[in-house]
């Protein structure tokens, strides 16, 4: 029952928040997100490490059940979704126009994402996968400062190209019953030779959502133009809808098809890792560097899954969380910079550490969290991913590992252009206030905990993976 609340609380409060007055809406939304966080933590601890589930009949004649479950696959994402949303809400500037609708949409996005992660039924999964597009589009189209319409349209087209085939595949499963009596993840069984045709549409949808090279055309535009707090949620969580989909739907519903495409997926992922790293190194925009670094790091997750090993997949699961925390945190850095009306071109920066010493320290830790510094969350994740892939694709693993060096190069370049050296041409900003310092410290703390105690985060997913690989 509590599982329902994890998504019902943000969805219904989000709907209510649209009607609220501007002043109270932000605190209300933050409160809701923190309530949801507490709920998720409570469930996470009571269900640790096996998870909890809830299921009622919905449209049983079509195999559709309202079934939700916290399990090893979604454990970390369900915990992180409200946390990141909470941070994003708190980091939203008070002078945002139509603040109530803004935070309401964030809450809705949060609710749909939680629903997506918790779904244990393919039909339900599909509904949430598409539903989350609505608040995301509203946020992008409504609050992007430049090219709002174009950015939203681009995102919409890419997503549609990905998800229309997926709709078709879901309908086929829905009407023909090739997947068995119901669409429950746990009960679906498909003949190995029929999997591949149905899996491709899903794969396409997930690859676009992550995104992965060369399907990432929407990414730089969106990350650059959307308000940074929205980007934080999209980069941290919505991108995980793609990787998580691959994880859950790929491994559970289409295991044979997944293993069939895994080699091609690995090649694509490594291409994406390198391509993202190079474009990040060649970019002169604060946000674009982060966007491309995200492209590179997300592909690392896909690479781990393609290894079809316990290590690779457990690492991929941890990397989803570690990347969410690090990238979410870095876009919060962009958010606080945005609030200070700082420019986006790296070449105009320099010497920011003099004006914002606190920001300099916190941003450094987040940069390190993103580049896989040992001691922070991405390190055990990458270590596990690459250990997993080493057994199957040793050459690709070496290439992917060399991208860690590139990541150090482009992220430090990014950091140093902003914070060190002689002073750039921008209006001198104030340092962080205590709320902002707190907001940026949360992801760092989470990353540290993941880096020093990765076992705790990986036990559920390892249990879940037993027997699937």
């Amino acid at each position, binding site marked *: 029952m509590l599982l329902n609340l994890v998504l019902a609380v943000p969805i219904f409060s989000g709907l209510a928040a649209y009607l609220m007055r501007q002043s109270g809406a932000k605190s209300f939304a933050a409160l809701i997100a923190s309530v949801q966080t507490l709920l998720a933590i409570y469930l996470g601890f009571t269900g640790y490490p096996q998870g909890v589930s809830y299921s009622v009949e919905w449209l049983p004649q079509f195999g559709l059940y309202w079934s939700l479950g916290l399990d090893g696959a979604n454990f970390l994402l369900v915990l992180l979704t409200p946390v990141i949303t909470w941070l994003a809400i708190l980091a939203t500037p008070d002078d945002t126009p139509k603040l109530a609708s803004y935070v309401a949409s964030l809450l809705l996005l949060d609710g749909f994402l939680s629903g997506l992660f918790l779904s244990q039924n393919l039909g339900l999964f599909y509904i949430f996968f598409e539903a989350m597009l609505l608040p995301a589009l509203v946020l992008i189209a409504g609050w992007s400062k430049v090219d709002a319409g174009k950015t939203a349209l681009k995102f919409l087209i890419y997503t549609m190209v990905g998800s229309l085939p997926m709709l078709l595949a879901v*309908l086929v499963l829905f009407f023909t019953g090739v997947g068995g009596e119901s669409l429950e993840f746990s009960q679906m069984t498909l003949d190995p030779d029929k999997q591949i045709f149905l899996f491709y549409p899903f794969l396409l949808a997930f690859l676009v959502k992550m995104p992965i090279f060369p399907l990432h055309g929407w990414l730089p535009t969106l990350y650059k133009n959307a308000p940074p707090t929205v980007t934080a949620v999209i980069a941290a969580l919505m991108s995980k809808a793609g990787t998580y989909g691959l994880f859950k739907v790929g491994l559970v519903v289409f295991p044979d098809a997944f293993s069939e495409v895994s080699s091609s997926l690995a090649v694509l992922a490594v291409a994406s890792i390198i391509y993202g790293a190079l474009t990040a190194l060649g970019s002169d925009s604060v946000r674009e560097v982060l966007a491309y670094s995200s492209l590179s790091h997300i592909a690392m997750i896909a690479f781990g899954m393609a290894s079809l090993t316990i290590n690779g997949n457990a690492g991929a699961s941890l990397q989803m969380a570690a990347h969410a925390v690090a990238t979410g945190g870095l876009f919060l850095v962009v958010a606080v910079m945005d609030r200070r009306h700082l420019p986006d071109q790296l070449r105009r920066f320099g010497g920011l550490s003099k004006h914002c010493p606190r920001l300099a320290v916190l941003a450094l830790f987040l940069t390190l969290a993103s580049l896989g510094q040992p001691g922070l969350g991405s*390190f055990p994740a990458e270590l596990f991913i690459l250990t997993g892939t080493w057994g199957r694709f040793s050459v690709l693993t070496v290439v992917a590992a060399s991208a860690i060096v590139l990541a150090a190069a482009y992220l430090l370049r990014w950091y140093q252009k902003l914070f060190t050296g002689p002073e750039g041409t921008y209006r001198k900003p104030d340092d962080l206030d205590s709320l902002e310092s707190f907001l940026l410290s949360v992801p760092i703390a989470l990353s540290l905990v993941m880096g020093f105690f990765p076992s705790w985060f990986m036990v559920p997913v390892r249990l879940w993976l037993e027997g699937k690989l």
Partner: protein
Amino acid sequence: MNTSFDIMALTLALPLLGAFSVGAFGKSWGKRVSAFVASSAVALSFLVTLFSIFRVHLNQVASTRSVDLWHWASFKVFDQVTDVSFGLYIDALSLTLMSVVTGVGFLIHWFSAEYMEHDPEYTRFFCLLNIFIAAMTLLVLANNLAVLIVGWGGVGFASFSLIGFWREKPSAAEASKKAFVMNVVGDVGLMLSVFVLVIKVGVLDYKTLLSDSQIQVLQSDPSTFVWLGLVLGGLLVGAYAKSAQLPLHTWLPDAMEGPTPVSALIHAATMVTAGVYLLVRMHPLFELMPGMMNFIAIMGAVTALFAACCAMVQNDLKRVLAYSTMSQLGYMFLAVGVGAYGAAVFHLITHAFFKALLFLTAGIVIHTAHGEQDMRRLGGLSKDIPYTCFMFGVGGAALAGIPLTSGYFSKEAILHAAHESPTSGGLLFLVGAGVAIMTAFYTFRAFFMTFFGPQRIEHPHLPGGPTVLSCTVLTVLAVVAGFFDQRLSNCFGPETAGSGFEIHPEVLSASAMGVTAMVLVAVFAAYALYGRGQHDKLGQNSTLLNFCRNGLGFDQAYGMLSGGFVLLARLARNGLEKLLSGSFPELLGGSFVTMGTLLKETQTGQTRHYMVCMVVSVVVLLVYCLLLSGGSNYAA
């Protein structure tokens, strides 16, 4: 996995606590209290280490023990589970290194308390120093390779932050980035070793991995040698990057951009020796591949020679010391390569003392001379700061290997081992001896250029009490540490005999006498050439000298490599990417819009048109379904 606690865990917790409290409250505490807190944290760590050594000595605890603090992670390859704990491995080697790290670390904290007094970012400095000590402690004490990388990366981070400590200086930022990226190359090398070990052996903790039985299993299996090269290669990449060995050394000379106490602590005494520690720790694995051992020895000798050549022609006092560090590390690798682990660790210890001393006294010189580091503009400082001159001289004597100083004993031990080595021993000895003579020359070139000749510095800024006191302690150590070698091995009890702590420097052998004589000649030659402030021929600008001074072209080669990457990156960003995220989606968008207008035409409002569309769609859908589900479902 049973977790337990050992008092050595405090050595990890104390500096971390220090770093956290100084970082959080340092600003409100003020400089004095911050420095006191940070230094005490390290001093307490040192005391805990001493206490642990005494407990071993009194047989209260086992001399070699592996303590699991908590479960870190588990790898699983098929049914083979590799448990990795966040744990400590405490034996003679790690305790020895810990006493150096915390002992020298404390002295440098103490020195910095006064030395950095006028820096506005005083508390950040001490916070970072404490972070460094904590990370170095983890590196030394980790009981498996995965957690070692955590410490390994941690010292890399501390080194990065401290090289770039003066953030407004673009050259410092550039140097720190270079150091960090090079160290990440090393981290990736170590990660590679971990992948292979996890998959092939399924063991990462030293206790099991390096146990005799495990080594025998590896040795008896011929397939071992297929993958062992990768493991050892990965470890070597890590060690070379961290210890600035050819060809991954270019970051070390640039690292001198950091404050001088940092150069003393991180880039001379402790962090850069981590590579030597790693190889000594992993020596049972390396011994399985004698070819690899030879390679290490030869590369060590080459690095020693290379760095000595560069050091001869430097004009910057700190860069002389940086290259000399690289050269001395080459000696240690040479020692490891010929199997003289005891000699390598012995030289590591004496080097930590005398090189820290040299850097700290060089720091005093630089302060005295108001920031001047170019030896051509220094000179005659023996009259302004005679005591510092004396201490620098002692450090220089130890570095040069003049008899009765600590460096003499440790360097002789290495040269002796090289001489005795059955494989290419003669050549290694000759190179080692040649480098020793060069070392004596360039060290005293620096000494005489700095302290002798006419006085060139006006209104010298004289050093204060704490800086001089901490250097005095190091001076004493730089002299007497040579007599510790036997005690060092005795102190840990007979069980450690296998870990390489028996040293028998046969200081009276004929070849050793010859080298010593040549070293003394080199010192006199340096005096004859530089003792009275003569014009310096080696400091001139000529093509050859500049080539040597700039590190024999390695920097240019790496510059071209990174330039190539940047070019590729620009091409990707401004070429392909423009297409993928620019033109292509816009084309797609455009076509959708066209399609939309076309589709608008289909909205005829006539029911029969809609009917046709519906029927066609349903048929298409049904055919697709039939194709997918096959006939079988319907037949049943």
